[in-house]
């Protein structure tokens, strides 16, 4: 099953490679990994999307907690949470496709952030499956380039991950 792990870790050189190294050394999957500093400059927040049975996820959580640089780990899937991902997608937009592409972007609540005579670059956020749906909806031949950040997640309501 797919799980989203939220990790607070020391904002130290090498902390990212410790986490990434753990996943490869122990043969765990990483679907996506995002990391950036938080409002507290000494801490980074990482979101890892991984797949595995409950036992594997439990081991991943334990192994992550064992890393000296990891301050806290939660499995967002244990309760309500919000997941968002940013995608930048460059598409061919000429002739009749131009208007159609604009409409599609609007339907998916994307923004066109760069325009040339032949292309649009669309910015879109949402849960991963929404971005997947957009890619599916657009004619494959028109997609020139996609960049996705991987999911970021946060608990709903009062559920807070903080030191």
């Amino acid at each position, binding site marked *: 099953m797919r799980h989203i792990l939220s990790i607070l870790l020391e904002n130290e050189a090498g902390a990212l490679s410790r986490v990434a190294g753990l996943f490869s*050394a122990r043969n765990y999957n990483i679907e996506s990994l995002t990391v950036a500093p938080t409002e507290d400059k000494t801490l980074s927040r990482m979101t890892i999307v991984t797949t595995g049975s409950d036992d594997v996820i439990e081991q991943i959580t334990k192994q992550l907690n064992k890393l000296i640089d990891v*301050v806290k780990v939660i499995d967002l899937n244990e309760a309500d949470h919000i997941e968002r991902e940013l995608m930048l997608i460059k598409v061919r937009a000429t002739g009749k496709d131009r208007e159609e592409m604009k409409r599609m972007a609007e339907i998916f609540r994307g923004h066109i952030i760069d325009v040339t005579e032949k292309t649009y670059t669309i910015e879109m956020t949402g849960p991963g499956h929404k971005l997947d749906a957009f890619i599916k909806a657009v004619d494959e031949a028109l997609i020139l380039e996609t960049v996705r950040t991987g999911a970021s997640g946060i608990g709903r309501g009062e559920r807070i991950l903080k030191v």
Partner: protein
Amino acid sequence: MELTGAEILTRCLEDENVEYVFGYPGGAVLEIYDAIFRQDKFRHVLVRHEQAAVHAADAYSRSSNKVGVALVTSGPGATNAVTGIATAYMDSIPMVVISGQVNRPAIGLDAFQEVDMVGITRPCVKHNFLVKDVSQLADTIKKAFYIASTGRPGPVVVDIPKDVTQQKFKYSYPTSVQMRAYTPVQKGHPGQIKKAAQLLLDAKRPLIYVGGGVVMGNASDEVRELARLLGVPVTNTLMGLGAHPGKDPQNLGMLGMHGTFEANMTMQNCDVLLAVGARFDDRVISVPQHFLSSPKKIIHVDIDPSSIAKRVKVDVPIVGHVKDVLADLLNVLKQSDHKQADITPWWKQIDAWRAPNSLYFENSDTIIKPQYVVQKLCEITGGNAFVTSDVGQHQMFAAQYYQFPEPKRWINSGGLGTMGFGLPAAMGVKLAHPDADVCCITGEASIQMNIQELSTCKQYHVPVKVINLNNRYLGMVRQWQEFFYGNRYSESYMDALPDFVKLAEAYGHVGMRIEKPSDVEGALREALAMKDRLVFMDFITDQSENVFPMIQNGKGLTQMDLPPHMRNLQVAPPTPVSERDYGNLC
């Protein structure tokens, strides 16, 4: 007054009460070696290969309660240390390894003798540091010792660029460590401990399974008291030997791949298992499916939560320091008015499994049996020697036939299985315990992986006894080739062996060759009597001897290959798959 980084480092080591540093100099650590030259608080032991420095520091730590320290230079010095670091990591040994690094501006430029030590060691250390400024040095060393020795212990690498050792800063050693992300637990959960006590009292077929965590956690007394209080059987893992006395009637010996028949049968058929500081690894329980096919309740005490439910799910997990948890468990048991279930029938069954003596071997008048050498050594030393070993048949014979009365006497590379460990390890142990008998049980293949340390032993006057069980084969490889590869002994014969007697003498030691069984005892006595000499004893042993019992890969605990005298024994099939149906499998 300001000190250089190198001086700060040596002051830190002094303040950590370090007694010995095992190391080897080189370009990146010259400043540190100069500071070592100018101090007299700790001794430096110059090894002949960096791997040996790390093994010696490791064994120094294993045999005492102190953190071992090794010091190596950058590049090849650092990479040579990696095998030693991985060895310590697999067995959870507290150790601090200091490696030199090239000057900071040169890092990443493929400088001479540059290697990314932090990157290379990341998967085989508890933690590592690159010291980027001298102002962080003392703090980092303090943290390194703290991390290495607390929680589940392990090696910590501190990589120090040469220019940091030359930078100056004011020295003050921190008195405490604050790390928000690292807070090892100590006490077990009281509710879980009560549950465990209840299960143990109700058990009809209980067993205590003791691992290296009990040795490292100094919880041997608690294990003994618990075993006595409940009158239950105890089995040790390879790493747990000595935690419960090998000769105690309640001790079933080692379990696992080369464990005794009774230990493995008891492990499989118990109804309540108390696992303490052990991790259900593949060489112990073999195939989890088979192990769990007989229903049992498992209580697992370990300081590392990730060791629990890694290979088998457990019913009562208790995370905490084994010593504290066992002390609390003992208190609960002593105060309980709950009557313990009758375990007499269980003991009757165990005694029946014991009766054929699975460690019996046919001794010979003409050829030396390796088991006999170990047996005699145990007898002559009264079990009181420190025994280090390398890896292979001799290691298993040592584990089976030397019955350790105390923990921290049996020093071997259990997890990584590192050949070449034994001699440098013996060196580290002897320096920690100068008055004790220290024997390195090895084979003619393993000993050659770090034989250069005979020179270090000469220089520092380290009179250990090397017991070379020389069968002219990579014995364990040969055994597997005999069993699984149709006697095709591919590259397992050690040809062109040196004359070990002459070799020992060339290094300035005493060499002996023993070829007749009748000479074994006399030779051992003679060697052990030479208290101030290193004696290299080359025992020419039976080439065809195999280690029994043995569990082949993929087989279950009860599906042992038994020694010849037990081949006709009817082994009860494992209890059929229970209603829990592998539910405990991870």
